């Protein structure tokens, strides 16, 4: 069982010694059941840190955001940043290392074990609890969560309320870390990976289109999906940016030549292209933290969309994102034996 006191003590030690600039971890939120990301800089704040199944967010995002923030502030504090990372989060960090987003020395990875389970899906849990309101959730052995509601604490089978991606998780333990808390429970296999994708592929083309058409139709273009994605770290999105990179030497010509691939209007065609470009740009980079799907206010099944190509990466190209920071990326490499029969 993960000992959060040890985690707190470790974070405290790092901040006391000043070996890291910030520790990104989780703390209890005032807004609801799910934990909130916390970037703490004072040793005293380490007492607020928690780790339980409500810690859904992928904190690798904050390594990316912190880098931007440091650059903006022109800070010369080169100390590393510590981050609490679950198995999936550690794979995201590996991809970021692979893409030279930061150096290994600049990040101190505090690995945490999901204890053989994973994180909770708040929507599933709410449905399961009906009228009762969850206040807290804790690990309860290798296959259950202890859920505290206004009516007391109960044990619920983890498989019933766990996030889909955790049910299909291929590496529940951090693959990259400086220190790990909790027990490595490598052997797990709750669901076969990619089962939702495979089920969707079996549907007819018309049904698939009807399904996605409905999803793209209601996209708000709030960009929460890419804002929460550690891999969407581009300062300017090629397909539809809400930010523009303008350097002192950027010419008027360059500004004028920005390509408008799609319109900002929330039309189906435009949103479809936005989500598809994102899926393609994530091919071989998505580590299935499923944050995009979780944060979508209108429940667009983005995990389903993005794991479609992850399935190809894994099954066709034997490429497992986040497994090795030294590998070339999926699309900047090839094999002679890649599929060829689809070409006429």
């Amino acid at each position: 069982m993960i000992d959060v006191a040890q985690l707190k003590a470790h974070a405290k030690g790092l901040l006391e010694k000043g070996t890291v600039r910030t520790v990104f971890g989780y703390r209890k939120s005032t807004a609801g059941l799910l934990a909130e990301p916390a970037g703490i800089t004072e040793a005293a704040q380490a007492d607020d840190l928690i780790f339980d199944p409500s810690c859904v967010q992928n904190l690798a995002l904050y390594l990316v955001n912190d880098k931007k923030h440091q650059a903006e502030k022109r800070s010369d504090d080169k100390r590393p940043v510590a981050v609490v990372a679950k198995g999936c989060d550690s794979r995201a960090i590996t991809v970021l290392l692979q893409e030279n987003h930061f150096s290994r020395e600049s990040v101190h990875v505090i690995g945490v074990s999901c204890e053989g389970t994973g994180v909770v899906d708040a929507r599933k849990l709410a449905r399961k609890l009906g009228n009762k309101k969850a206040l807290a959730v804790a690990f309860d052995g290798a296959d259950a969560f202890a859920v505290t509601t206004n009516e007391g604490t109960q044990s619920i089978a983890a498989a019933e309320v766990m996030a889909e991606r955790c049910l299909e998780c291929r590496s529940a333990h951090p693959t990259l870390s400086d220190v790990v808390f909790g027990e490595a429970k490598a052997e797990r296999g709750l669901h076969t990976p990619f089962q939702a994708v495979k089920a969707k592929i079996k549907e007819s083309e018309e049904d698939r289109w009807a399904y996605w058409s409905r999803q793209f139709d209601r996209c708000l273009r709030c960009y929460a999906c890419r804002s929460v994605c550690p891999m969407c770290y581009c300062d300017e999105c090629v397909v539809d940016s809400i930010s523009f990179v303008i350097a002192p030497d950027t010419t008027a010509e360059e500004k004028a030549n920005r390509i408008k691939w799609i319109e900002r209007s929330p039309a189906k065609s435009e949103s479809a292209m936005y989500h598809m470009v994102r899926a393609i740009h994530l091919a071989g980079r998505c580590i299935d933290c499923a944050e995009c799907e979780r944060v979508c206010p209108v429940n667009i099944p983005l995990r389903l969309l993005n794991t479609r190509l992850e399935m190809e990466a894994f099954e066709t190209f034997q490429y497992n994102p986040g497994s090795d920071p030294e590998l070339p990326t999926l699309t900047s490499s090839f094999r002679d034996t890649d599929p060829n029969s689809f070409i006429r």
Partner: protein
Amino acid sequence: MAKVEQTAKDETGFEPKIVAFLCKWCSSAGSDLAGVSRLQYPSNAVPITIMCSGSMSPMFVLSAFNKGADGVLVSGCHPGDCHYLKGNFYARRKIYLVQKLLQFIGLENDRFRMSWVSAAEGAKFAQVMHDFVTDIKKIGPQTRLKAKRP
């Protein structure tokens, strides 16, 4: 049955709009050979010559569909024959992924195609064009990804 349907669609006078991305060294040269050999094929596809199929960004494909293309073709050198050594191998992997994604969201399967056409394959180029237009005529206009344009 399929044949009846095909004639029915043909009679509507639907002329598909196709964008064909041809690599400069093989497929575009192959289309030149088709021209020199006076091989006739339907005029629906408008060629855009790119340096190499390896330079084919997925954005081009999606954008063409967004702008109302009924079909998109990417054609490059046969594996091993790339003028730039291995550009077509990168293209193959990328196009494969794009195709899988388009199929997944439910775009009609036949609308996006890749072919290998060498500079010597004028006849093959004409055949590829002919087949593509025929297949797209069967499925009709592309409405799924096309932006609504008043």
